[in-house]
């Protein structure tokens, strides 16, 4: 099975390198067919992406990612980086252009990328974990209640000590201040309304901590 997956990796990488190189340097491969979009919306979208330089960014990601696949270097990173590009390409091919052959090709590339990501699943464990810390501890956090985000801002029943809530409230107030004084227009107001949620969680958690302290 590993050999089949290795072949898939090399074939996918080679396709991406060749098609991306053809986009950047079409004179290298004059035999490659040019693609014209039939749907006006698809043509406009790709035209605008080309003019703005966004398509060059996408093609560069595919070129670099494809090369990494062929060379078998940092493959999990390459696959993760290329996935959003393939999702956008599939969206354009299926929902905007609607051409059966193009849609099939785009979906095949997306499926190959997805299948290879499944094959490298253990390397994505760090981003797929879900625990009481919210999937991982950030720099400076510890697993002690009150010392990581979720124990203060997400779970009011974490059992964090009351003094931890003072620090939590200070950070929350700083964020509210930022939206009030620094962020202009409605963005400031909507940011403050959004932060009402962790504010309520903090308040309920603090009341719980104080009640627990009194009971003890």
């Amino acid at each position, binding site marked *: *099975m*590993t050999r089949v*997956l*290795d072949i898939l990796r090399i074939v996918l990488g080679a396709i991406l390198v060749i098609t991306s190189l053809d986009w950047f340097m079409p004179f290298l491969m004059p035999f490659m067919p040019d693609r014209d979009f039939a749907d006006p*919306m*698809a043509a*406009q*979208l790709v035209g*605008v992406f080309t*003019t*703005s330089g*966004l398509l060059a*960014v996408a093609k560069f990601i595919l070129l670099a990612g494809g090369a990494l696949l062929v060379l078998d*270097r*940092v*493959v*999990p*990173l390459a696959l*993760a980086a290329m996935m959003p590009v393939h999702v956008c390409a599939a*969206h*354009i091919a299926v*929902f*905007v252009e609607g051409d059966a052959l193009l849609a099939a090709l785009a979906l095949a590339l997306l499926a190959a990328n997805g299948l290879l990501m*499944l*094959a490298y*699943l*253990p*390397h994505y*464990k*760090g*981003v*797929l*974990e879900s625990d009481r810390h*919210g*999937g*991982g501890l*950030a*720099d*400076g956090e510890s697993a002690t209640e009150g*010392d990581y*985000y*979720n124990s203060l*801002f*997400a*779970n009011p029943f974490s059992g964090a000590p009351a003094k931890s809530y003072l620090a*939590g409230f*200070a*950070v929350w107030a700083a*964020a509210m201040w*930022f*939206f009030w004084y620094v*962020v202009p227009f*409605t*963005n400031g107001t*909507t*940011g403050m*309304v*959004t*932060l009402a949620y*962790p504010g309520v969680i903090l308040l309920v958690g603090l009341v719980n901590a104080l009640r627990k302290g009194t009971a003890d």
Partner: protein
Amino acid sequence: MQYAVWFVRLVYAGWMIPAGLNHFYQLYPQPLGNQPISIAVFTALLDSGLFTVVKAVELVAGVMLLVGWRVPLALIMVLPVSFTVWYWDTELQGWWTASAIYGWAVVGCNVALLLAYWDNYRDFFTRHARPHLPWAGGAGDEGSAMEAQA
């Protein structure tokens, strides 16, 4: 250090959730851009339906950050959106405009939080990773991610 991370996380979530929600339920007028190319990109994204995908990712990732659910996944998921916002705000709108400040702020928060959760992304950089489908069985000879890295 964790207080700085919490601050950035709250600010980022407080920014992303309304920005994502605004596409589905208007809270404020959506900035369309003020340069011909930025307006063209925005219009094309909107008309093609890709803007809905972008805004859904923004909204979902923002909620994940706020409620503390699979935070490293949310940060990596929203990175292409942050990059595109940064590109639109700087390269397309102009490097010395008010838009550019927003662009740098969005991508800066995303990158800062990615760095704060760096340990979760270490396995992405395994030089010679060995593939193995989860349903294929016989994982014993494949080794762990860390073994492959050694």
